[in-house]
């Protein structure tokens, strides 16, 4: 099982490694619905609108000067990379250009790619076969970020690996949140622990942890109600859920996943910061990346908050929740229209 996954990841890696990717990708495409292809087409919008403008800029024969740098900055800001991160990125690019003595714009693409990769850092994918059981995952985020959908997809992913999955309906506030989760659980074949509307979320979660222990579940995924990070009492409630989990099971929650809407702007940074203060987050899932012209928030979140992006949602299909692989992401951003993969 694990071997299979590693192989899969390696293949997608290979697919992303520029030049000789043409051989690896069709194969992985056949096996896995074309992870890279899918990412590429999902990010097509981003690429078409912004990064293809970059390729337009980085033509042979154009000199690297301040004007060019400012145009690149503009494009980055327009793709939600954020002012702070853009400036940092461009400082690094300028330094690299100087160090390498580059003069032609066409040489900038690889520098840019390398610097973005550098900001994104090492990939830290979600463990597919948990080391501990029950492996507990707490899912948080603002209203409408896509928590419940992400949980549905996540549950189905663990199920397809043969894991016994329990989901806790910790969103007892929003109307019909439980029902929505129940439908996802049915699709994925996961068990749902529910406390009923208006139940105290922490108590539902507490019960779920015990249920997971007694029923030998491999994975417990905890849904929480969407909450704006500006609401102090709701953030306190979240902190309590985290504490309750830790008390019910040593080391829980093992994974604290913050779900961020990919179309959100610089607000994502403050969201990440405040949620992190309530329950230290271990990873970020960025959703709805297929619709946005701006994947830039992925870069900003990692660069400014230091929270690794672990998952990205690139479509509505059950398997459209993917491990985030920085190399693939950057390659997909820069891949030009005609490039065969």
């Amino acid at each position: 099982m694990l071997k299979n996954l590693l192989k899969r990841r390696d293949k997608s890696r290979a697919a992303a490694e520029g030049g000789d990717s043409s051989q690896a990708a069709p194969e992985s495409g056949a096996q896995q619905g074309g992870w890279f292809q899918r990412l590429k087409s999902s990010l097509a919008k981003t690429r078409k609108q912004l990064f293809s403008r970059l390729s337009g800029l980085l033509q042979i024969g154009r000199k690297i000067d301040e004007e060019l740098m400012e145009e690149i900055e503009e494009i980055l800001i327009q793709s939600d990379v954020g002012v702070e991160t853009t400036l940092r990125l461009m400082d690094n690019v300028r330094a690299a250009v100087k160090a390498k003595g580059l003069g032609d714009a066409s040489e900038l693409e690889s520098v840019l790619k390398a610097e973005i990769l550098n900001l994104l850092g090492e990939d830290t994918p979600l463990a597919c076969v948990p080391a501990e059981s029950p492996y507990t995952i707490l899912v948080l985020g603002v209203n409408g970020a896509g928590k419940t959908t992400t949980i549905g997809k996540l549950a189905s992913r663990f199920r397809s690996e043969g894991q016994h999955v329990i989901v806790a309906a910790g969103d007892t506030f929003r109307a019909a949140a439980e029902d929505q989760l129940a439908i996802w659980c049915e699709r994925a074949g996961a068990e749902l622990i529910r406390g009923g509307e208006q139940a105290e979320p922490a108590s539902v979660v507490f019960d779920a942890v015990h249920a997971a222990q007694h029923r030998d579940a491999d994975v417990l995924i905890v849904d929480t109600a969407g909450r704006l990070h500006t609401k102090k009492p709701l953030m306190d409630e979240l902190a309590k859920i985290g504490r309750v989990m830790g008390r019910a099971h040593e080391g829980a929650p093992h994974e604290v996943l913050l779900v961020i809407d990919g179309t959100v702007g610089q607000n994502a940074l403050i969201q990440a910061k405040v949620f992190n203060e309530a329950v230290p987050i271990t990873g970020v899932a960025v959703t709805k990346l297929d619709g946005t012209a701006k994947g830039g928030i992925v870069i900003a979140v990692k660069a400014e908050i230091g929270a690794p992006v672990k998952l990205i949602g690139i479509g509505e299909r059950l398997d459209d929740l993917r491990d985030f692989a920085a190399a693939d992401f950057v390659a997909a951003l820069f891949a030009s229209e005609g490039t065969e993969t």
Partner: protein
Amino acid sequence: MFESLNERLQSTFKKLRGQGKLTESNISDSLREVRRAFLEADVNYKVTRDFIERIKTRALGQEVMGSLTPELQIARIIGEELTQLMGAEAEKIRIAPSGPTVVMLVGLQGAGKTTVAAKLALKFRKEGRTPLLVAADVYRPAAIRQLQILGEQTETPVFSMGTDVSPVKIAKASVTEALAHGQNCVIVDTAGRLHINEELMGELRGIKDAVNPTEILLVVDAMTGQDAVNVAENFNNDLDIDGVILTKMDGDARGGAALSIRHITDKPIKFISIGEKIEAAALEEFYPERMSSRILGQGDFQTLIEKAEDVFSEDQARELERKLSENKGLDFNDFLTQLEQIRNMGPLDQLVDLIPFKNQLPVKNLKPDESHLNYAKAAIQSMTPEERRDPTLLDRSRKLRIAKGSGTTVNQINTLVNQLRMMNRMLNQQTAMAMPQMGPKLGALPRPKRKAKKPRRRKRRKSR
């Protein structure tokens, strides 16, 4: 709301303080900062560029503004241009002259369409109309159920045909249903969709053709980044929308969507939605001028007064007036009523935002905590009717009992008693005030910080 943008603009203005007049160099320094503030607030790149250009022309053009300092000149130009950017005049939702008013809500997934639908239904009901909610989201699991629950909460009928019927048919049938039952407002909640999804956008066009909506409103998450204008443009090109509703305005949205959408699409923002509770106060009509004033940190007293008037019935006002004229002072029953009223005015932190020039108040970081309202309410409810009427009855043992009964501390009870006393003292000084109903209302706003008040209280006690 828009705090970060406000702070950045304030600091920009501050730097102009002490300068003799606007010069080309200090203007361009300020504008560079304004530009960055805008970009950090997710204002669209093009909108930012145009905006800066206009400010520059006006500031350099030296419209003669009498004795205004450079700081105030720039602030005024920016204020006016911000208003312009958001559409100058407020545009309200249209009501069909005959036949049912059909409102169609569209937008991306997770923008808040279903919640807005319920808030809108409540608003219509308050205005004496009879709304019908229509569940046309057949894709998202349990979306219909969600609308049904919200329908129960708002006592609004919900029309649904399950998930196997096409949304176009559902919408069409719902209008017939409304006509048959004499409901005069139809609110169609459609499924969230990406603006680039051709098939689903086609479905929306189908609904539009089938029911010919009075208003097509695009629901946009106020926290959306640079993409907000693309989303709005796409929906607008496909559906020719009538307006926009901005949601999650209490999530410290930067203002980008609010400032960009009108300029790019030329379609007005009609409402802003605040808070996740379904209450009428949570859907505010959008006034560009008031919003511009909020962005500049000048508050919005108009909205504050309107909200107060909304929850404060005439009977209550008369009762209060009577009490005041009899010079009896307020008791805990009045206090409790006021707590309830404040509650009904919407989220507390949003109310504080409306206070004019709150940044210049002596108390910094006014961050009200709703839990204070909770403990005050619990404590009062643990009092006997006599105690509520006559706070002087409260001796140590009674206070202890109340504290135990309400899960508070004697200290908190003391604070509460002191608050009431202070409020009455304030009222006595102001009985001649023109607007008696506003006095206690402001007095009842939660203490911003307990620490700030304690020393003062001690001093007073000693002097007595």
